[in-house]
């Protein structure tokens, strides 16, 4: 039973969260200039590292998407931060 910190709500149970995507997947645009391979890479590829990872998560109860840095093996949570552009 893991516990993740929502940058706004504070620590909550894993059941309140939904994994969205690994961080750093910039959407390639415009569509007309994006190759099939580049689009597939954006859509589907994941590093799935064994160790530290940075991911976008959704806190289901408040609806906030945020960045979570954690270890996929030890399950230690290192940091959680709002998406860029959120006033502190």
């Amino acid at each position, binding site marked *: *039973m*893991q516990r993740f910190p929502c940058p706004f709500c504070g620590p909550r*149970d*894993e*059941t309140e*969260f*939904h*994994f969205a995507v690994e961080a750093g997947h910039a959407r390639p645009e415009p569509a007309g200039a994006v190759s*099939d*391979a580049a*689009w*597939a*890479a954006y*859509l*589907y*590829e*994941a*590093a*799935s*590292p*064994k160790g530290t*990872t940075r*991911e976008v998560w959704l806190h289901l109860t408040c609806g906030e998407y945020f960045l979570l840095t954690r270890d*996929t*093996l*030890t*399950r230690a949570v290192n940091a959680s931060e709002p998406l860029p552009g959120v006033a502190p």
Partner: protein
Amino acid sequence: MQRYSALSLLRQGLAGHKGWQSAWSKATPKPAYDAVIIGGGGHGLATAYYLAKAHGLTRVAVLERGWIGGGNTGRNTTVCRSNYFFPESVALYDLALRLYEGLSREINYNVMLSQRGMLIAAHTPAQMEICNRIANAMQINGVDGKLMGAAEAAAKVPLANTAPDARYKLMGGIWQGRAGTARHDAVAWGYARAASALGVDIIETCEVTGIDVQDGAVTGVETTLGPIRTERLGIAAAGATPGLMAHVDVTLPIHDYALQAFVSEPVKPCLDTVLLYLGTGTYVSQSDKGELVFGGGLDRVPTHGQRGNLPVQEAVTAGLLEMFPAFGQLRLLRQWAGVVDVVSDSSPLIGPAGPEGVFINCGWGTGGFKAIPAGGWLLAHLLAKGTHHEISRPFDLRRFAEGRLIDEAAGSGIAH
């Protein structure tokens, strides 16, 4: 290979069982092999066996970082089935089931394939329609699928919940008579023994730390037991595959999750089929030892840790008791988790990847055990011929760029 039979048991019994030989030889690495397979689970060992048996390639090594069969092969709920929707999937999983059907005799090791039949149970008219869609798809693809009505289905699972306040009543479902279970460890050991007898080196506690590439082609691997040269590398390492492919800068469409399985205390026979409830997502069978073996959904937090968490345990257990209220008498004996590699379209990846000479067989997600013979057969074909078998071609990594996904969950409404 020392032959196993009732007679040999009798003979050895009289001799105090002193004459049994090691099931497989404990090999140490040679400097070079014709083919190296990373991963000593069912898929890797089956690959080695079929390479030797069907393609005559015996200068083959299987590298296992722990002990063979210790990954997902030994951590699943042992279900074998081919009740799939897309023809590509049916061809793949039915190849596996057909190979399973002859396996014990072929490798002279009883893998205890118990074709006790499997019911996918539906509860609403809408689910019955989906079940009919799948049953017809199976029939068209030459597989024994059948839509079953309420009475017939209920007769297969006598203890299923018939209370008026059941959340999900059994309306019927899809029946596959050839589906069932097999003894998971025996599959790994049996393949290992048969491969070893054909000359394959099975090397345990040997972890791969790097992949050597020259001019775009694989030349060998670095391991904790030293470098090994090879020009053909097969990777059948499930959740460890993304990390291995990172050595050659290939990123895969894979997320790793923990999948839990549960075992109750053993009881006398009370469930003679494999049952999956669409309503609860829980599946269950009873082992020969009498334990109820059950599981459900993934722990939805990407991980490489072989540990499960409480919320899923509670949900899966509640699902089981909703299906079988009488099982509320029982206790949980064991629980474990495997790390499963889930592909975006929930179908496996089989085919070349990265440098020339590297072939992968991964992404089986929650459904790898049932596919072991096919996974091995197809990866062996790739390693031996360098090209796809017709059955593996649709599962090539290129399907993502081409937009040709094989999404069973989406196609059938039923996840693996």
